[in-house]
């Protein structure tokens, strides 16, 4: 039986937490296939990330540490994944569907001549997976027919792996690296003092109903009182009220916090697809027919202009 290979994501030598959800997927997969579970860490100066990955119940960590891999690039990383997958006899290669996984894994599938299932929500068999399609309106049951299956997993549908055990770390050579002339010039990071959208316990989101970028300041106040992350609908991003990286939805980020507060959001299908796995959903909207109320645990019909200031005051009293 072949092994399950999870491609870990690291940044500046630290393991990125979405990897832990892919490891949970890997454990489920290894139970189904009966194979071992391997974690692959790629980069430069990644000793810490490799040691960290070893703590979550995997059989073995493979580290490919090379100065030429300091910056992530699909062009150089995909062949490394492929050579490790072949050397280890992996029959499932998986990663979390972050922008890293989404960019890298199809290229890996191309080089492995493997079928790929994107953004899966459930393991339904050795090569069969369930995945949301059509903006989350339907769930497709897809079966991969090639010997090797490549998979990206929807972070919110798999719990983060818990620490347990310690696995050996094995080094593997990167081989010849060819970036095909491509080069990463720089990363402009969004200065964010708040938790990551996909990891926050509380998400406060605004939609077109917020009307302007200025009005989002009220949502920021509420967000910070709750120690949460700020989100927005595609409509609000499109309208330039907030940057696109705040977009929650099928084509943006998929979130599942303990508490999701939707304000001025009507509830377009593609937005609901990105947040309806949240534990508790609160909706404030002036239109009582808005679809958002069909998924909200607690709905308050009213203009945000009237209700939000009171809500902020009350939360301040509780949290203060």
């Amino acid at each position, binding site marked *: 039986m072949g092994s399950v290979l999870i491609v870990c994501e690291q940044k500046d030598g630290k393991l990125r937490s979405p990897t832990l959800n892919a490891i949970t997927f890997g454990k489920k997969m290894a139970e189904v296939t009966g194979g071992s579970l391997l974690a692959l860490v790629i980069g430069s100066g990644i000793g810490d990330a490799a040691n960290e990955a070893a703590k979550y119940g995997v059989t073995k960590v493979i580290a490919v540490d090379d100065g030429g891999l300091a910056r992530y690039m699909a062009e150089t990383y995909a062949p490394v994944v492929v050579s490790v997958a072949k050397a280890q006899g992996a029959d499932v290669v998986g990663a979390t569907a972050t922008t*890293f996984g989404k960019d890298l894994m199809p290229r890996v599938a191309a080089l492995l001549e493997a079928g790929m299932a994107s953004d899966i929500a459930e393991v339904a068999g050795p090569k069969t997976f369930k*995945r949301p*399609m059509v903006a989350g309106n339907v769930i497709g049951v*897809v079966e991969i027919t090639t010997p090797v299956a490549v998979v990206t997993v929807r972070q919110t549908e798999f719990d983060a792996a818990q620490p347990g055990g310690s696995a050996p770390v094995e080094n593997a050579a990167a081989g010849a690296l060819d970036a095909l002339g491509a080069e990463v010039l720089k990363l402009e990071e969004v200065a964010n003092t708040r938790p990551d959208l996909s990891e926050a316990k509380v998400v406060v989101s605004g939609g077109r109903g917020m009307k302007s970028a200025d009005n989002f300041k009220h949502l920021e106040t509420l967000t910070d009182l709750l120690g949460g992350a700020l989100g927005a609908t595609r409509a609000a991003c499109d309208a330039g009220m907030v940057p696109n*990286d705040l977009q929650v939805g099928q*084509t943006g980020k998929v979130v599942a916090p303990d508490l999701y507060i939707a304000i001025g959001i009507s509830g377009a299908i593609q937005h609901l697809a990105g947040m309806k796995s949240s534990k508790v959903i609160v909706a404030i909207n002036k239109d009582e027919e808005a679809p958002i109320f069909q*998924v909200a645990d607690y*709905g*308050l019909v009213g203009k945000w202009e009237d209700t939000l200031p009171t*809500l902020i005051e009350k939360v301040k009293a509780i949290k203060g």
Partner: protein
Amino acid sequence: MKILVTVKRVPDPEQKVKLKGGVVDLTGMNFVVNPFDEYAVEAALRLTENAATSKHTGEVVVLSIGPKEASQQIRSCLAMGADRGIHITGNDDELDSEQVARLVAAVYAKEQPDLLLMGKQTVDGDNNQAAQLAAGYLGLPQACFACNVDLAADKKSITVGREVDAGVEFKKLPLPSVVTVDLRIVLPRAVKNNETPDTHKYAEGPRYASLKGIMQAKKKKIDAMDAAALGVSLAPRVKLNAIEAPPERQAGVKVESVDELIDKLQNEAKVL
């Protein structure tokens, strides 16, 4: 500069999707150009024009794989200003991303464009694979989820701002290469090509077809091709075995006031 842009005919994402007998019920559905693909067409047009003089300085070829009705979507892109179309007829519901990527790669090999430009994902399949797969098959560099593109003056390279989890990553690629676009690519100053003055501010969003454009589109050429002629075999690597309804989330209660909401969140849901 020659750009190959892919466009898919998809059910209008604004409509409610119904399941009937284990398949998506398409009766009475409107079909549109996949929104991300429409953005790719807009980006391709911006890359191949001088907006100040309204001069078209390159060639934009629109490729669609789909049923015969997909010619409507190709025409609408030609009406926006693309130069010609290629239509591979086929039932795209039965094609997986890999087959689509093989077909795109085959057309790429025939057309030899300087840039293969695609939407980051379709809004029906939601796979987000075809461009990366095609780049892999073609051995070309890739830049996915572009929010801005800057074409070098010598037209030999592009610098792409990519939407990544941490922010925007700037990646420089030699041409030819493969780029997929994200939402912000249609902002007023997202595309620079060293022909349109950098001070030019586009209207946000994909352009509307002018009446003149619509008339001209009728005369533009759409080449029909099929998979066999392109030498692509069509055995799927991923089979769609079934379609299920997603788990329903029950609507909760309406509260009358902020006080009641706070009370519920504290004492019932216990999340405050």
